[in-house]
């Protein structure tokens, strides 16, 4: 690493950490000022909430990058060790360098955010400090741990080149501290939505910090944010590679490097993106459990149209990911064999997104209502309900997975029969499949024994629980048969049958059955969604295990021509990155907005002049602006980090001469 990035890292980091600590030291002093009426301060005539919105979102975005990239880096480094391919190691190293530049900015923004919170919202921060001050000290200490492990991880890269697992262990420590920081910060954000430990009459906090930390929304928020951070890290890496590929790559070797890097970034992002809707569903479900008012407001109230916008952005990401797969197949010999299937997949994706983006409640004029015979469209109203949404979300994931399988096998020719691959498939296919299938099997039996009274349903409704249970048993049975077929060299047929069945059961059968449950046993609907997730995970993972052995050591029809990717495929990667950044901003708006006029839901009311919920127009303009600032800022940081490369290259050139 050159001197430039070293100075950014050390000076900026120290200043930011000092600011952060000063913020916590100042907290008790400010907290004394909070007893009594709600208190707000402002900076001149500036809108305090808008300032908070922009700074908090930028901090979160940089935070997502500096926490997502270490996960990305360590995975890539381990792949490099396992495969012996130095490109992986170089890529992990390159991104750790970018990380160090972004780290100081993240910490500085965090310090600014803390000062603004204590300065502009003293009463709110007084409450939060009163509840969480213990964890705030831990948070600051974790920051030291993160800083030092990042230093060691980056600077020991060459020194520990021949002791890579020791280096990976340092990376593990870096990720441990990064993860711990997220977990602590998430507890504050989730407590604002689901506060605990409060006296029901006086609303005074009489619990303990640990109890408040593990509040009901903490775990689902952790799962959702962790996965989202990996997606974010992967897509930022992919976009960085795309820009380098299109703009700065000087020769074929560099183009090949950045083409490949973009592929890996996209691959990691997509891999984490596939379970993200499930994590989102889990979080949403828990929001409903904490407060039905907040939950209904989310999907059926003030934010229902914001969720349509969210669907639009997710559609953008999935379509861009699939488009990238298809256009990138141009550089893979033998991929033309699969070209015919692409249009059908595109059709399925577009149809699924059309359903996903159909609102249940249309804003109609009286004349329009008369024309369609009521407030709801006679057909489209069904597409706006949860069963339809769940069905198509699963279909989108399934189609993307199928596309991934096609991409994987695009240049694979003659395969080695599984029966001739020795003992490993005979052991691993059954073992992995058994691990995957155990829980769906258990859940099927659980549904059969489920007492309707637990869901406040009359006893006769138990018969409605059987259908999803039987579907789970069918899926497990077919998955077992698929594994057997794979061992007898019928893997590809088995995969098709398994994935086809999964699609039919999840989308067709349970998609329709969900409407019956909605009408007859509404509380059971959430169990239907769980069954859909289990069927999908079961189908995907078993098909993937089979695929690994099916194409192991297969003959290749030609190397992938890295560096030959068309420019439009790189624009797809840039689009993905923009969409995930905007999506993060949009979801942050929804999560914060659900509290409406409460700083801490049901405990501390927001009595400021800005306690109302902004419109979607305000949201898209603000999030668009924040995205522009973030991508410009991180672009500048990458450019600064890249200056040291040039310096090193010119130094090497000088030595060579």
């Amino acid at each position, binding site marked *: 690493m050159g001197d430039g990035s070293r100075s950014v890292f050390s000076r900026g980091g120290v200043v930011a950490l000092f600011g952060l600590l000063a913020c916590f030291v100042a907290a008790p002093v400010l907290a004394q000022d909070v007893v009594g009426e709600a208190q707000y301060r402002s900076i001149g005539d500036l809108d305090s909430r808008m300032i908070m919105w922009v700074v908090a979102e930028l901090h979160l975005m940089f935070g997502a990058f500096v926490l997502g990239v270490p996960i990305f880096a360590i995975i890539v480094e381990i792949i490099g060790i396992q495969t012996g391919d130095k490109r992986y190691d170089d890529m992990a190293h390159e991104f750790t360098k970018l990380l160090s530049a972004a780290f100081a900015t993240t910490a500085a923004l965090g310090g600014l955010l803390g000062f603004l919170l204590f300065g502009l919202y003293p009463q709110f921060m007084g409450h939060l400090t009163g509840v969480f001050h213990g964890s705030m000290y831990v948070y600051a200490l974790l920051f030291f741990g993160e800083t030092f492990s990042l230093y060691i991880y980056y600077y020991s890269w060459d020194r520990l080149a021949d002791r890579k697992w020791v280096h990976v262990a340092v990376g593990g420590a870096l990720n441990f501290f990064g993860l711990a920081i997220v977990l602590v910060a998430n507890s504050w954000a989730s407590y604002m939505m689901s506060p605990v430990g409060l006296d029901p009459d006086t609303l005074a906090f009489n619990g303990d910090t640990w109890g408040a930390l593990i509040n009901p929304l903490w775990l689902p928020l952790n799962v959702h944010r962790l996965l989202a951070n990996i997606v974010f890290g992967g897509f930022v890496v992919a976009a960085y590679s795309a820009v380098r590929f299109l*703009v700065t790559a000087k020769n074929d070797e560099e183009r090949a490097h950045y083409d490949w890097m973009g592929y890996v970034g996209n691959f990691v992002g997509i891999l984490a993106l596939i379970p993200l809707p499930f994590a989102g569903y889990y979080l949403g479900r828990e929001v409903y459990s904490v407060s039905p*008012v907040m939950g209904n*407001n989310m999907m059926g109230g003030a934010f229902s149209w914001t969720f349509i*916008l969210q669907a639009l952005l997710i559609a953008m990401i999935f379509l861009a990911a699939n488009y990238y797969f298809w256009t990138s197949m141009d550089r893979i010999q033998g991929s033309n064999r699969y070209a015919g299937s692409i249009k059908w997949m595109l059709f399925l994706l577009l149809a699924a997104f059309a359903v996903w983006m159909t609102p249940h409640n249309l804003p109609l004029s009286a004349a329009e209502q008369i024309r369609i015979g009521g407030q709801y469209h006679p057909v489209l109203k069904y597409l706006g309900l949860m069963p339809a949404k769940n069905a198509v979300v699963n279909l989108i994931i399934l189609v993307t997975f199928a596309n991934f399988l096609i991409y994987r096998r695009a240049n694979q020719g003659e395969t080695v029969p599984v029966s001739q691959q020795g003992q490993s498939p005979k052991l691993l296919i059954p073992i992995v499949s058994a691990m995957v299938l155990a829980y769906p099997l258990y859940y099927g039996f659980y549904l059969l024994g489920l007492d309707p009274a637990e869901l406040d349903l009359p006893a006769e409704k138990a018969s409605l629980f059987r259908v999803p249970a039987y579907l789970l048993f069918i899926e497990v049975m077919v998955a077992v048969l698929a594994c057997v077929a794979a061992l007898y060299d019928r893997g590809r047929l088995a995969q098709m049958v398994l994935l086809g069945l999964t699609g039919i059961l999840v989308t067709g059968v349970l998609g329709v059955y969900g409407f019956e449950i909605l009408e007859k046993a*509404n509380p059971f609907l959430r169990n239907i969604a769980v069954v859909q997730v289990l069927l999908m995970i079961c189908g995907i993972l078993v098909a993937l295990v089979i695929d690994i052995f099916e194409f192991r050591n297969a003959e290749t029809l030609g190397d992938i021509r890295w560096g030959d990717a068309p420019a439009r495929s790189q624009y797809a990667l840039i689009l993905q990155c*923009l969409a995930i950044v905007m999506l993060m901003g949009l979801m942050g708006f929804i999560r914060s907005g659900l509290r409406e006029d*409460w700083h801490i839901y*049901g*405990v501390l009311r927001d009595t400021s002049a800005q306690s109302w919920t902004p419109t979607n127009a305000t949201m898209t303009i603000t999030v668009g602006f924040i995205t522009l600032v973030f991508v410009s800022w991180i672009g500048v940081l990458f450019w600064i980090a890249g200056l040291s490369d040039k310096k090193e290259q010119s130094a090497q050139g000088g030595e060579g001469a």
Partner: protein
Amino acid sequence: MNPHVIGIPAFGLAVLLVFAFFGIWVTDLQGQKSGGSQLSGDISAEAGREIFWGKGKCYTCHSIGGEGSAQRCPNLGTNDQFSDPIWVRAAVRKQSEGYSRERYIVESIYDPNAYVVEGFSKGLMKPINKPPIALTDDEITSVIAYLLTEAGANDAVPEDVMAAVLDAQRDFASAKVATEEFVPGMPVPEGDAEEGFYVFEEMKCHSCHKIDGMEFEAAGDAEGGVGPDLTGIGDIQTLEYLAESVMDPNAIIVAGDGFKGDDGNSKMPEFHDTMTLREFIDLVAFLSSLKAEG
């Protein structure tokens, strides 16, 4: 020059602009307005409608007939499941327990889990007078008025029905009565005068107000005389006047020595935020019961 140097920023800006304009279009489509809304303080069916479909968030779970889209909680109008609207079916729902229509509706707002309609989840609805919704008692009265006017189809709630609502509400309302929530001239339902006696005593009203023929447990500091003698006050003042005097002592200050302080205001302290709606109604009933002959 590499075309992508211009192409990438242009592409990025185009994506951001499309996103921003889509938000503007959706906002326009929804008719969504920016900023907060201010409700009037009146108790009326009209205010109830505004609360039901706005601040009260009732619409996130309940529809009324074809109005609204929520299905999570019972439709309060008619649909495939319910042939009668709530203002009809409430009358018979807990009839066997002696509940009136008004009492059932009041209970289902203050204590929603006391009776849960079959097929709907228990625990889904929280008491509406508690956070996070935290409607005031008056706002709840308005929502009930809205429902009892057949969701706004009729002009007004008959007075006897309104009195029954307020009477039922007395048993559930727990929020302290705030001056700003008290609207002069609001109908005061019949309270329990005997309970009102104890409220009078607990609030130490007898420290300043004398009532001939009555004894109270704790002696007041001023031994009476700072405030007007309340003996027989029920003969000469209406319920509404008495209610206003309790909540806003400065509204009308009786002429007499020592009733006003140096600042020209009544010496009587403010009692807002110190008693519940039920205590308030009972206290007013007690004052109204003070007849000269009694």
